[in-house]
């Protein structure tokens, strides 16, 4: 049947082809090399090489599927109240002054990205309603493209960067970071990472955080924390959340985007939370959040949040879950140690302590473009730009190959 053509030109003519961030993943899938390794994934993978549900999660999902009392109703716009309550407690601690003083509200969001997007939209709405504030937002250097893109898409125009990753030391140069924050305009919003920086994995010590928090109080800076993997860095939920709690204890207002993807293995279900700790005007901000959620996704999906709520509500489940989280964190640390050991044995002038210093999923080798290309094209080892990689995808089967390949990549530039 011949379709009648409206016109020769498509109305979508203007749209140019956009190469996908997923291209790396697509290339990996198409790669037929037997030794190929994907170290550029966003998920935690187990020793067997794929993502896994915690047995507890599987059990609870089955319970939910057969629970006749659960209704399919539209949830509240801001999500299940029980969920936001527990997520808030998890981040801040049950006895947090902000909770006790009712200066906090939470929004169930579509993953961490959804939380960041909503937070960004809220901040942009402040620009509109408050003529005396117009940004900027400070992002770390480096940061994921998608993070920058999320703020821009929300309409935030004034985005600047603070120095974070230092190639010289293969870690964070706190001096630079402090300097940049001290010189940022007052009331800037600063995006910070609790539970591991993406993409470098580089962490700050508690002493570092104390220094930064002091600067933020003095300069009236507003922290926007990203806590995408609480518990996975140190093995302790409390310890990973320390930077957030410390800022709250100093009386700072802040936003915190949380994800339950990594620490529950619930990637597919998109369970996120945006925490808002304010000094005043809570109800008005909450009402604006509702208004914004309506233009994004109306209300959030239930399945994953129900699982998380069930676990966080039940003391026995909570213990079991905390142990699973600790096990993941410990495995990541073990892989890092083994990687460091292999690299050390392979020789060369390099130091490898920066591999084991932070915990969590990500690790950065500060490789240049040619070195990254070498790894991908010649060794079929897929890493992120800058040579950042997801350590969980390294296992006993590919450890030697990965270590040797990284060694080769670095040696080839000598």
């Amino acid at each position, binding site marked *: 049947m011949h379709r009648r053509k409206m016109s020769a030109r498509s109305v979508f*003519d203007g*749209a*140019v082809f956009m190469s996908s961030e997923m291209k790396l993943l697509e290339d990996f899938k198409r790669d037929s090399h037997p030794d190929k390794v994907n170290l550029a994934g966003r998920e935690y993978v187990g020793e067997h090489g794929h993502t896994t549900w915690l047995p507890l999660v599987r059990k609870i999902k089955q319970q939910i*599927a057969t629970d006749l009392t659960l209704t399919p109703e539209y949830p509240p716009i801001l999500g299940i109240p029980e969920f936001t309550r527990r997520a808030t407690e998890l981040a801040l601690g049950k006895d947090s002054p902000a909770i006790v003083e009712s200066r906090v509200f939470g929004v169930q969001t579509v993953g*961490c990205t*959804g939380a960041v997007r909503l937070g960004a939209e809220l901040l942009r709405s402040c620009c509109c309603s408050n003529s005396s504030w117009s940004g900027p937002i400070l992002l770390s250097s480096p940061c994921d493209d998608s993070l920058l893109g999320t703020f821009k898409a929300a309409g935030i125009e004034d985005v600047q960067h603070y120095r974070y990753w230092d190639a010289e030391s293969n870690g964070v140069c706190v001096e630079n970071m402090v300097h940049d924050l001290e010189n940022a305009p007052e009331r800037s919003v600063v995006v910070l990472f609790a539970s591991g920086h993406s993409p470098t994995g580089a962490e700050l010590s508690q002493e570092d955080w104390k220094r930064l928090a002091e600067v933020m109080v003095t300069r009236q800076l507003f922290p926007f924390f990203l806590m995408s993997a609480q518990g996975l860095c140190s093995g302790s939920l409390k310890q990973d959340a320390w930077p957030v709690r410390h800022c709250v204890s100093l009386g700072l207002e802040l936003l915190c985007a949380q994800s339950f993807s990594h620490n529950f293995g619930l990637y597919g279900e998109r369970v996120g939370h945006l925490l808002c700790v304010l000094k005043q005007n809570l109800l008005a901000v909450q009402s604006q959040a509702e208004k914004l959620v*309506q233009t*994004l996704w109306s209300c959030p999906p239930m399945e*994953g949040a129900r699982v998380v709520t069930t676990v966080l509500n039940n003391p026995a489940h909570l213990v079991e879950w905390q142990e699973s989280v600790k096990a993941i964190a410990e495995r990541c640390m073990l892989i890092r140690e083994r990687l460091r050991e292999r690299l050390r044995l392979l020789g060369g002038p390099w130091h490898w302590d920066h591999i084991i210093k932070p915990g969590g999923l990500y690790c950065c080798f500060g490789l240049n473009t040619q070195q990254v290309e070498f790894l991908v094209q010649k060794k079929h080892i897929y890493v992120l730009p800058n040579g950042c990689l997801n350590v969980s995808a390294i296992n006993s089967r590919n450890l030697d190959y990965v270590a040797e390949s990284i060694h080769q990549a670095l040696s080839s530039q000598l």
Partner: protein
Amino acid sequence: MSIFGEVPQAAPVAVFKLTADFREDQNPSKVNLGVGAYRTDECQPWVLPVVRKVEKMIADDHSLNHEYLPILGLPEFRSSASKIALGADSPAIKENRVGAVQCLGGTGALKIGAEFLRRWYNGTDNTKTPVYVSAPTWENHNAVFSNAGFEDIRPYKYWDAGKRGLDLEGFLGDLESAPDHSIFVLHACAHNPTGTDPTQDQWKQIADVMKRKSLFAFFDSAYQGFASGNLDKDAWAVRYFVSQGFELFCAQSFSKNFGLYNERVGNLTVVAEDQDNLNRVLSQMEKIVRITWSNPPSQGARLVAITLNTPELFAEWKDNVKTMADRVLLMRAQLKEKLKALGTPGTWEHITEQIGMFSFTGLNPKQVEYMVKEKHIYLMASGRINMCGLTTKNIDYVAESIHEAVTTVQ
């Protein structure tokens, strides 16, 4: 001073406030005819039997992977959902120029479509392209497009309050006077809130003008199957436009027809000129999704995909949908009969002529207030009622109350 210090209080969303007020009401005769969700004759939410079945299948399936879904969503969901809208034998699908993005409900689909159009339609970043929404329309349409950056959102004439039907002349007039390339948000079937759809002949006239003026058709399809009980019949308008060579978007929601309100299952179907255009569009949409919610949730999409792709389950689903549609039709018929029997002034034909979940009763704001305050029957200020809120047990009370409102309140 806090950067959030001057943020103003936003007005509560009317329909949710209505439900909140209903919940607080202690009166035993109270009835909620507000929010658009299906209810059984016992006034309970209904988990479709086929949904319960598939939910269990998913929970017991140990082979499922738990990774992030692709950014554009579950492939088998996207393709089967588009087939539902366009028909499995759609020429456009055969010509490989149909694609889709799994989204967070109908809202999410509208959002992604709007964000794409604002960036890439009618020039680059042309925020001045007029977006037309029906008068009246779902109250969230305006906010979604405005938040996506469109500066000029206008109403097009739709509801004729006088004759309680479609103002076709006004509609066609607004189409004619719209600047070329304007975007029109069209309700695929079961118009919300009026329940009044154009006839096939009227759709043809609408399509003619739109084609001539290169107006962009953005369909909102939240009630497919729910309107007539027949999926294909409810999709006639969208399919007609495709057959006329339109490139278009169709934002589909599976909240109502699967009863999956809480899992946010939506699909943005894209019909493009050819595969090359389609690929470019989808690549840009992927970028937009990445910085909105990154990846969509898997539960609801998996459920729908399994159902649509398994013949026995698909048949069972269609049956469940018909059950819901039939109950609505029954309530419509009974309400009209009761009003006629009571001799309530005015004509009530529109109750059975209108289609889908909602009916625009024609009650004025004072009469609505009477219904809410005196009779504890909650409906929208516009006079919109959700037929699903009616049951064999409350229909007499509601009919009598409408009668009272019309006869005693001017």
